[in-house]
């Protein structure tokens, strides 16, 4: 998946298999967290898979992506190996951030995945800076900046949107609206009926997409990114989605009903893409089962890899503070 491919041309069966990998990775991460193999905070992406896979399918491999702390899927979608992702959760030296970042700070520069940022909305100005660099160098890349619905009430978000609009920067702001900022419903946090309306104040075009529908997300982003590559400008998408699990591993999600969760589960993004492909005779049940089995095996192998990987050496404790090895 590291080879350069034009936007929107990714094979859909391959993308379904990526969604399965993300789902199985997160389920296994949950289990390993409960087994205390993983420390700190751990935020799972289960239920939201169509958003990042749709987005990644719509852009080139050299476009920049950056996200918040629910970031495992974004790294996997960009081609970071399940091994490197699981090893990071285990805090091992073979992790995608050498075991120094953890669940909330996944980085993979080679695959243009720029984090993994854990202060809500603090990475939105960073994304604008990455888009600034694209325009400064006269490139035709775009930056995709993911964040949750909780980010839209932070000052950094507003300052960043204004700067992006003012300087006409090539960036797509993708709000993964899963209806809850931790345990606070959007209805209790946001003065607007629709999140997307925030963008009117910055003269940034905004649209709503069904974040449970891979094809809708992909097609909308293809359209938006085409327009941005012709003439740089910011755009905003509110992807309506749902996380099946709590905010983090410690959250039983008692602020919502079982009925609500079940309603969204019926609309599962993996089931939906599978049904579409099956109906169109692009996928058989046997094929699907094989893909799922592969995903499970890849993730099991990743756990083994993480278990067996070395700890970051104590002697290197001071090696990652200053790029030139300066000692204060």
């Amino acid at each position: 998946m590291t080879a350069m491919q034009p936007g929107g041309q990714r094979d859909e069966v391959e993308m379904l298999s990526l969604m399965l990998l993300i789902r199985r990775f997160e389920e296994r991460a949950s289990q390993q967290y409960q087994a205390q193999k993983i420390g700190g905070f751990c935020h799972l992406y289960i239920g939201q898979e169509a958003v990042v896979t749709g987005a990644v399918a719509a852009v080139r491999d050299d476009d920049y992506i950056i996200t918040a702390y629910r970031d495992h899927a974004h790294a996997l979608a960009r081609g970071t190996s399940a091994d490197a992702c699981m090893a990071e959760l285990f805090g091992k030296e073979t992790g995608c951030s050498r075991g120094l970042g953890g669940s909330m700070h996944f980085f993979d520069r080679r695959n243009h995945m720029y984090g993994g940022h854990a202060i809500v909305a603090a990475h939105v100005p960073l994304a604008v800076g990455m888009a600034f660099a694209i325009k400064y160098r006269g490139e035709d890349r775009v930056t995709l900046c993911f964040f949750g619905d909780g980010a839209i009430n932070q000052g950094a978000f507003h300052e960043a949107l204004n700067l992006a609009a003012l300087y006409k920067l090539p960036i797509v702001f993708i709000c993964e609206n899963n209806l809850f900022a931790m345990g606070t419903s959007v209805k209790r946090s946001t003065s607007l009926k629709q999140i997307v309306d925030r963008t009117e104040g910055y003269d940034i075009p905004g649209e709503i997409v069904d974040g449970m529908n891979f094809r809708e997300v992909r097609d909308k982003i293809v359209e938006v990114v085409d327009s941005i590559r012709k003439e740089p400008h910011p755009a905003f998408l509110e992807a309506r989605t749902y996380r099946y699990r709590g905010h983090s591993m410690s959250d039983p999600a008692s602020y919502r009903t079982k009925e609500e969760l079940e309603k969204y589960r019926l609309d599962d993004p993996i089931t939906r893409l599978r049904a579409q492909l099956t109906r169109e005779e692009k996928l058989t049940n046997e094929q699907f089962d094989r893909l799922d089995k592969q995903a499970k095996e890849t993730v099991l192998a990743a756990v083994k890899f993480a278990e067996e990987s070395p700890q970051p050496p104590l002697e290197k404790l001071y090696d990652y503070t200053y790029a030139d090895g300066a000692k204060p």
Partner: protein
Amino acid sequence: MREITYRQALNEALAEEIERDPNVFFMGEEVAEYQGAYKVSQGLLQRFGPRRIIDTPISENGFAGLGVGAAMVGLRPIIEFMTFSFSLVAFDQVVNNAPNMFTMSGGQLNIPITFRGPNGPVHQLGATHSHATENFYASVPGLKVCAPATPRDAKGLLKTAVRDDNPVLVLEAELLYSSKGMVEPPDKELLILLGKADVKREGSDVSIICYAQTVPLALKVAAQLEEEDISAEIVDLRSIKPLDEKTIFDSVTKTHRVVIAEQDHPFCGVGAEVCYRIQKNIFDALDAPIIRVSQEDVPMPYNERLEHAVLPNAEKLIAAVKQVCYA
């Protein structure tokens, strides 16, 4: 060598680095069309154009973060804070994003960014506009912090900061912008290493350790003390982090008495760290307890007489020197 102002020295450093490296751009409030709130960027827009010299809205958090993001993908931003008092609005970007990125990414992303602007108390601006931020920022792993006192140091340190592969804060001083000093001609490259203190005046009885605005104060005091037969050595730290222990220890080993003149607050101030390192490493060299002269531990009052009482001033510094010299 020729005599120029601290302001001109900074302006030359900016121009030379923007000219030298196409990845360097300069951004901040009023830096372009207005020519800089303190005219440090005078003429840069005309010379380099709006692609390289960029005005921002009043959004410190936003544009400081923009700079960090641009640095993540290889540009080398210079971000001006109109004053470092305003950098507090961008604290999250300066403290949480810029210095943590290299560690959090396991060494994949370094952040070659320079944050610069005036720092420290000025004159009757009151509590919100008088912050000396050096001790906040120097306490953060991953940041480098310097505070030049002379035009030559200002130019050499700023140029080095821009070329450094880490986030560096260049804490200037508004009260020094019009001060003059000898600086190498523009055709002679001037780079001053971070982490190198400078003995601005040699002496034998007491070491006055200072930086930024307290350097001219200490030099003035040293001249007065000379008349009373007290010979003061003036050690200008120039760089707060990294800290040049060797130059400090060499001076203290010679004079055996220390006064630290700092422009920040006393509680957890820069002088506290310097004191700790002296007593830990060369305890036997000391003939008297170290005294720190800093701001008083109060928010800055507007009233001129009270402001003078809060600041490190000549009377306090002379009294401190006499106390450590038992004079």
